[in-house]
């Protein structure tokens, strides 16, 4: 008999968070200057409400969300295109791969001042940083996915006299799609990091900008309110990626449902 996997309800998933918040609140209240040094769920929540009512928090959240999303989309599109092109042209792959690896090893923090000089302190520089942060992962995943295409399926299309481009469209791209999405999920964090670093160095708005200002005032609860905003962005983008995956890869989703179906 096959063991069935029961889905954990949302309230059960929330238990560790509630316990952590309670412990944090109690500890912060009982320590000397505990709220000043560590903040507390109540103080963070109060800032979230107050700054949301005056609108500044939502503006900052919106700016960071826009920068991250735009950079995420651009970086992943360019990276996926490059990675899949490498399958199409092995010569291009051989020439480009060392450069991609070298680019991937550079910390985004190191190039961010240059990018800000090129694109200014507005949105474009943050979008560019988020895009650069995601591009290498997207490229590598797309190439790996394309390289792992089942050669038997390519042979099938060859037997049908399909052109290389048709084989690419009909077999290589669908084969690589699982890898592409694995890269996209990783890239949510990288895009957020790129945008955040850009705001951290020089910006007029955004959660990174808000956090650096709050740090200057030793306002730990507001810093943590900014961190909550970053978590929200990460959650929203990851959910969007998962939704897109369900839509684009229905055969994987159906396989998962079948596996989770309770045994008769």
């Amino acid at each position: 008999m096959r063991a069935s996997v029961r889905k954990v309800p949302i309230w059960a998933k929330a238990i560790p968070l509630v316990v952590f918040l309670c412990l944090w609140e109690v500890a912060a209240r009982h320590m000397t200057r505990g709220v000043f040094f560590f903040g507390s769920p109540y103080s963070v929540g109060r800032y979230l409400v107050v700054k949301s009512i005056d609108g500044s928090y939502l503006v900052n959240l919106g700016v960071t969300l826009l920068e991250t999303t735009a950079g995420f989309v651009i970086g992943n599109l360019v990276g996926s295109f490059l990675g899949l092109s490498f399958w199409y042209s092995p010569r291009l792959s051989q020439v480009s791969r060392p450069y991609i690896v070298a680019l991937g090893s550079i910390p985004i923090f190191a190039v961010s001042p240059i990018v800000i000089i090129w694109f200014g302190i507005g949105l474009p520089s943050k979008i560019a940083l988020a895009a650069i942060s995601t591009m290498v992962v997207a490229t590598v995943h797309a190439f790996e996915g394309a390289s792992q295409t089942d050669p038997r399926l390519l042979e099938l299309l060859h037997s049908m006299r399909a052109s290389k481009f048709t084989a690419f469209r009909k077999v290589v791209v669908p084969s690589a799609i699982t890898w592409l999405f694995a890269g996209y999920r990783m890239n949510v964090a990288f895009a957020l990091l790129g945008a955040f670093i850009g705001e951290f160095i020089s910006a007029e708005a955004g959660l990174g900008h808000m956090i650096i200002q709050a740090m200057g005032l030793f306002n730990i609860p507001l810093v943590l309110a900014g961190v909550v905003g970053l978590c929200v962005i990460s959650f929203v983008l990851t959910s969007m990626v998962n939704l897109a995956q369900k839509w684009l890869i229905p055969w994987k989703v159906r396989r998962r449902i079948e596996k989770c179906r309770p045994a008769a």
Partner: protein
Amino acid sequence: MASEKHVEAWGLGLAYDGKHILDGIDFSIARGEIVAVIGPSGCGKTTFLSVLAGILVPSCGTVQINRAPDQLHATKCAYMFQDDRLLPWRNLLDNVLISDEIRRISPVRKRAALGFLSAVGLEGFEAYYPHELSGGMRKRAALARTLFQDGELVLLDEPEASIDYLLRLKLERLIFQYVTQNARSLIMVTHSHDTAAALADRIVLMTRSPSRIQMVFDAGLARQYGGPTKARHATDFFDLTTALLDNCLEADADARISP
């Protein structure tokens, strides 16, 4: 049946990693003919089929299609591989329709595709993905896709594998009707002597690797008795299967496992 030569091969040889797999095969098939290829496992039957399909390039020898050399890639050839090779991200109907998409036939022949799926006993499974089906069902879907391709030359690699006996009889009838009604040439690799005897016009017995043609049997029972199922009831059928078995045992004497 017309005797016009469709495919001819002379001195066909193939070496891979220094190992000779095919060794000087002379072969021909007339247009509209059904040829079954039998022989021990690993003797190179699939390799032979792959060479005819233009997937592998022979080390030596010549293949001519319609009496013209170098026409291998121009010919409309439908190849059913030993494994089903269904695209996992496509449902069965879309898997069958892929050849129309490749040939840019617009609109795709959806009704014909559904007809072939129904003919192989997969009616109602059009929207299923390959992983939702059993091995035998996937194999039948692959057969439907191959026949739907409408190739002048049809190559089937063990189409009867993982399919139950009664369904196999049904598929034999389907293949026979398809070939005779559409005047297609068919080469079929099989391990089933009775399928070969019931369906084929000629049966080619291959030797162990490096493979050569050891013997050719004239059959044609399906045409003589009006179908492969009727052929199975004929006395000739039993004589032919016995002859095939005897010759296979003789050919494989060296590899026989001692009791």
